[in-house]
């Protein structure tokens, strides 16, 4: 089994791009990623395109604009894990020797729905009963505040950190710093979550080019080695689930660490799924950088911002960078590519050599999350 490397990465700014179609979003980072790796259209062996709401043949609608066709194009939905699922498939395709060069696109245009919460599948029982993603995370927050020493203020501190990081990221949707007071005063969405504890409605696209060792050797620019790629669906549970200790992330992360031969304390930088600020605190715990029930202590201590033990979401995360559903998993890899190649500019994590990305996709009855994808990357 060969190795797989990311040799280039590009993304659009995330924001409200109402005048762009999925192709309008996806083409610029596709062109930039190929250009910066010095890879021609002819060399691309396959394309995987993560998206949840793009409709039929989204990947092809993007690739045909640059005359890229003929090759296998696979469109991937796994809700918010779609982009990372596409990376996982590309990783396996390259390692198995099926292709030497694979392009991964993550793209989403959520402004097509106006504003409001993500449309969820109406065939699902809980969706018919009125469930929306903010309600899921609100209940997660409620249990977390009940079962641990965390306070609502801790949830606000996560948003403050994400905005602080976002202010350093020209690609982020939300780039103004904020205060805990402002976060707590923002309007209620699903209590106890306020507006600024929720990721915004976003459009955007991100692309990484994944290649075999042979191709990597001829590319002189810095690259990133993919050390682990893990994908899981949620365990089916019709009844009780512990919403503050989601097993899908814990199990996926543990397998990723094992696959890479590292541990949580070896990570210099993490991009995790902070769709709502409660998620970050819960994920500190199940990703293994905090003890169960004590994730809130990390945000209070500043342990997860610049200068801390591990920088979490230097990009601003989903909260500040934005969360175009199918794009996010690839955008996390783009951020880690920049971090691990020393090209992250003002938000560079010092001596970043090893990093982890994590996304989950939720929204149907009987599964705490529908999917989860975890990757470990290393400077190469």
């Amino acid at each position, binding site marked *: 089994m060969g190795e797989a490397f990311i040799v280039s990465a590009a993304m659009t700014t995330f924001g409200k791009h109402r005048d762009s179609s999925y192709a309008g979003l996806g083409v610029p980072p596709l062109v930039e990623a190929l250009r910066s790796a010095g890879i021609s259209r002819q060399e691309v062996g396959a394309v995987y395109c993560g998206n949840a709401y793009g409709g039929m043949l989204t990947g092809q609608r993007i690739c045909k604009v640059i005359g890229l066709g003929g090759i296998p194009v696979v469109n991937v939905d796994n809700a918010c894990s779609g982009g990372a699922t596409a990376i996982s498939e590309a990783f396996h395709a390259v390692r198995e020797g099926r292709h030497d060069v694979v392009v991964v696109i993550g793209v989403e245009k959520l402004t097509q729905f106006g504003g409001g919460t993500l449309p969820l599948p109406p065939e699902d029982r809980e969706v018919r009963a*009125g469930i929306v993603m903010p309600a899921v995370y609100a209940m997660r927050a*409620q249990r977390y505040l009940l079962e641990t020493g965390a306070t609502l203020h801790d949830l606000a501190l996560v948003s403050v950190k994400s905005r602080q990081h976002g202010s350093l990221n020209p690609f982020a949707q939300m780039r103004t710093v904020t205060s805990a007071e402002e976060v707590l005063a923002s309007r209620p969405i699903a209590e106890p979550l306020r507006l600024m504890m929720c990721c915004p409605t976003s459009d955007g696209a991100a692309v990484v080019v994944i290649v075999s060792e042979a191709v990597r050797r001829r590319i002189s620019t810095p690259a990133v080695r993919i050390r682990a790629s893990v994908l899981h669906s949620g365990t089916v549970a019709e009844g009780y689930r512990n919403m503050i200790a989601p097993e899908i992330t814990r199990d996926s992360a543990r397998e990723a660490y094992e696959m890479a031969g590292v541990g949580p304390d070896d990570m210099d930088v993490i991009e995790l799924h902070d769709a709502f600020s409660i998620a970050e605190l819960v994920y500190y715990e199940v990703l293994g950088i905090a003890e169960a029930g004590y994730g809130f202590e990390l945000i209070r201590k500043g342990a997860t911002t610049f200068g801390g033990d591990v920088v979490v979401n230097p990009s601003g995360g989903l909260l500040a960078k934005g969360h175009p559903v199918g794009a996010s998993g690839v955008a996390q890899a783009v951020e880690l590519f920049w971090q691990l190649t020393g090209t992250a500019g003002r938000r560079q994590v010092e001596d970043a050599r090893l990093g982890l990305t994590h996304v989950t996709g939720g929204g149907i009855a009987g599964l705490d999350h529908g999917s989860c994808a975890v990757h470990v990357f290393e400077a190469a």
Partner: protein
Amino acid sequence: MNSISSDQASTRGESTLLPVPDLADGPEVSTDENGRPVLVGTECTECGVSMAGRRQICSSCGAVTVRPAGLSPDGHLYAFTIVHTGPNGPHVYGYVDLPGGARVFGTVRALGDDLRCDQAVTLQLDGDHWFFRPM
């Protein structure tokens, strides 16, 4: 012509296989022998687990020997939230854990602020709409 059953003829080329008409399941509530509203559910005769809604397979053990069984009307409120994003103003929803193993998401109604996690709640009917309220 079965959908899912234990005497499966679907592998033979001349039989047919029908999908489950789950979009025509009918009301989500019925009444038990005491006239109390109960949520329509399914019980596995193999492992005993209850599931919400009409099912043909047990998602816990995989058995097809399942039978209709109303869910317990009484349970505990695992968590709840007041959602402000709907078209009709603030609305309280929650997860209710029922004996038998099902967790149900639905509307919760309470007077004032008397909701709390792990509270005992019971199913009520208001016309066609079912909801849980504290006992």
